[in-house]
């Protein structure tokens, strides 16, 4: 068997890892972010999950944002707000 030197076709995910590390442990309570993709029932699903989280976790603060359309990515300002004010973000698609 002869091994050949090859070029990987895959790209790594570098940016997401660094953001996660920066945010960890940055608050005494949990700063909870919500990104609603605007599909029907996404708001109900996210509210249910938030209520459940509040029962089980020390939620200190909630920041909620809604995309104007499900088929477009969230605007940079929305992402910046969530990155700055939340320890993690829960997003949902729903129908």
């Amino acid at each position, binding site marked *: *068997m*002869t*091994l*050949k*030197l*090859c*070029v*990987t*076709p*895959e*790209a*790594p*995910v570098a*940016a997401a890892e660094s953001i996660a590390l920066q945010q960890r442990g940055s608050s005494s309570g949990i700063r909870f972010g919500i990104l609603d993709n605007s599909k*029907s029932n996404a708001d109900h699903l996210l509210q249910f999950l938030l209520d459940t989280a509040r029962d089980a976790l020390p939620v200190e603060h909630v920041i909620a944002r809604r995309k104007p*359309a499900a*088929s*477009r*990515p969230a605007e940079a300002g929305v992402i910046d707000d969530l990155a700055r004010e939340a320890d993690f973000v829960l997003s949902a*698609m729903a129908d």
Partner: protein
Amino acid sequence: MNGIDKLLANPGVGFEANDDSEAAFDYCMERGWSDGLPVVLPTAERVERMLQYCDRPYDEPIVMIPPRYGAATPLRLAANAVMAGCKPEYFPLVMLAVEAMAEEPFNLYGIQATTHPCAPLIIVNGPVAQELGMNSGHSALGAGNRANATIGRAVRLALVNIGGAIPGIGDMSTYGDPTKFSYCAPENEAGNPWNPLHVEKGFPAHASTVTVVAAEPPHNVNDHESHTAVGILTTIAGTIAITGANNTYYASEPVVLLCPEHAATIAGDGFSKQAVKEFLFEHGRVPLGKFSKENIARRFRSKLADKYANASLDTMVSMVQRAEDFLVVVMGGAGKHSAYIPTFGNTHAVTRPLRHADGQLVKSIAEMRRS
């Protein structure tokens, strides 16, 4: 080697594998690097040959591909082109298509991640299509032509391997569609009685371009009986008028694909391309009452309230926002079958010309080869 040896020494760039065809396929499948079909192992020698048609730094990203936002370097794109079976001279069109898809109006993030079954349709115009032996005639969107098949496949592999459009993870398409393997063909410019697509978009006829469209698979329009423009366009308008397309709700540019025979009949009756679009805009409509009660209440009366809040049920709903939104393309061989290709919503087609690094339009792929 123009730096490829150095690049391969960096962590994560190179790997060693058995070049036996079955072993190579197994190796790539195990890592999620295939579309499910056999691939060519991207050896350093093969990738370097692909890069003979690249005049950019091999390790500098030309775009970032969502949803992973992986860096699409020429080196990685060339590896995907090798895996897809591209000849090196196809590579400039692979890079061009990826660049076009990354432009904001195309909305690649949405297209990659959506539950909708769209895939990038790559329409090639200009002299390079013929130079590369691409097929714009019989079965142009089908199987059998290496350039059509592998350019489209290379783009798909790059979307998966660099962009992370992994089914069920980054690509949430509910059922997918066969065009996610490959979806690329040139316009049949010889069979087009009007200006070809790239000239309509403002480029000179001698330019070579790709136009990317976030498209569904084609829906056939069979009309063997009509022998007038109005007759053929009435049949097409009837095919356009459907209740389940994204185009009804969101700004987008669906494709009207005319076979040369239909196009000749329509143009022979004095219809310009713009007149075709206006006819289809006026006649390709659905009465509001044909939509489900739930869609009328939750979509038209609510999300589209500015137009339909108090509209009567016999209000005719147009399938696009403006007549100009229809992309009219001539493709295929003999026969009286045209097609309608709906698209994703919130997307616009993007046309990009093939240029040298100095900005000059490319006249021939051969002149792109480095000595």
